């Protein structure tokens, strides 16, 4: 069955220009398409191949290529297979089209990517912040945002030696293990 399906799917996918299909396993298909061909691909997958479930939209920040990669994972309840459609868009200005009218779950994922990466999705119903409503820094998931530096600047956490810990250490209790006794507790199988 899966062999037949594969051919059928491959034939179908060839309608899209510039598509590169790679079959990773019997249930996972990777398709690389140009950014402007993605809506057509998704329409095709949803309308004619039964891939009606948008499992997730993932975003990867390839800072060295100055590009964002958007990955649309769609699942078919009929053929039990998952197609991951990869596209790349320019990091600046970071704008892409919404697929909300095809897949309603996209509303959440696009909103999430918007606040984490700052990509704007045109036509998405709700581009308000959801998680980081009270955050005024840069989009935190971008690679150039250095979380550790931010923490060191805004929050002091390192010099932590409260009186109760001092007391505890003075009493000789607590969790202090001398370095020479530290070891990885590894149990032989």
């Amino acid at each position, binding site marked *: 069955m899966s062999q037949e399906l594969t051919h059928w799917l491959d034939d179908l996918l060839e309608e899209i220009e510039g598509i590169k299909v790679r079959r990773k396993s019997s249930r996972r298909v990777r398709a690389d398409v140009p950014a402007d061909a993605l809506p057509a691909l998704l329409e095709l997958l949803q309308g004619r191949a039964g891939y009606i479930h948008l499992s997730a939209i993932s975003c990867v920040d390839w800072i060295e290529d100055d590009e964002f990669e958007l990955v649309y994972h769609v699942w078919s309840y009929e053929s039990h297979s998952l197609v991951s459609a990869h596209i790349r868009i320019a990091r600046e200005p970071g704008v892409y089209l919404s697929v909300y009218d095809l897949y309603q779950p996209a509303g959440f994922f696009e909103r999430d990517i918007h606040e984490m990466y700052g990509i704007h999705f045109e036509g998405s119903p709700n581009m308000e912040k959801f998680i980081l409503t009270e955050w005024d820094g840069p989009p935190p998931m971008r690679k150039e945002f250095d*979380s550790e530096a931010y*923490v060191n600047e805004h929050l002091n*956490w390192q010099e932590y030696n409260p009186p109760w810990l001092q007391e505890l250490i003075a009493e000789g209790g607590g969790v202090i293990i001398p370095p020479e006794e530290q070891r990885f507790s590894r149990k032989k199988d």
Partner: protein
Amino acid sequence: MNSINKIPVIEEKRTNPLARVFDEFVRFCRSRSLFILHYCTGCGAIELPPAMTSRFDMERLGIQPMVSPRQADILLITGYVSIKTLKRVILTYEQMGSPKYVIGICSCTVNGGMYWQSYATAKKLDEYMPVDLYIAGCMPRPEAVLAGLQKLMDRIHSGEANSWEDYFRNYDYYLGNQQKLFGENWQTPTDIITEAKHYDLIGEGTLGKHTQILEQHQKPLEALDMRLGHDLKEPTE
């Protein structure tokens, strides 16, 4: 700065021996009746239902959950507090009636725990509000939670658990830390300074440069007074 230990146990000067017995009785009742605020701030909250329910049964110690901050005595900070939550926690803390107690559960409340790199969580809880007790662990077992609560009961009974006074007496310090994190426009609806004045809890550290910043932009929060007479002043605006 950890100022909890700076506050001495206040020995009120009461000569009547009955008054002493009465104080002892009140302290005892306070220690035997603790209402926990029902607020799951973090993942440690998952160990509270076991501690509350049939297996460990908190109610046999007189501890029960309560819904609104007005009713509660104990604020359990169960784990990491994200900065968004921290604002709500401070609001909630200020709305609770004193004497109130804060227990930091899980390691994350102590110094940020495993989220030390995270941009979204506050690291040291006792910079923002006085903490009575930490129960460390990730996450502490229900037994540990109960043991911590029992320790708190002992401290309440002996009159040591008075960190809530610290919040009034050193409000400037806490407000300063809050302003550093949330920006200078930070204001909660509870007017701590007038409350401290009303209850005679003004200390050396209540007012300072941070409260001055607050007063500059603070919108008035006096209670809506009941105006009986007709000699009402014409509105100023």
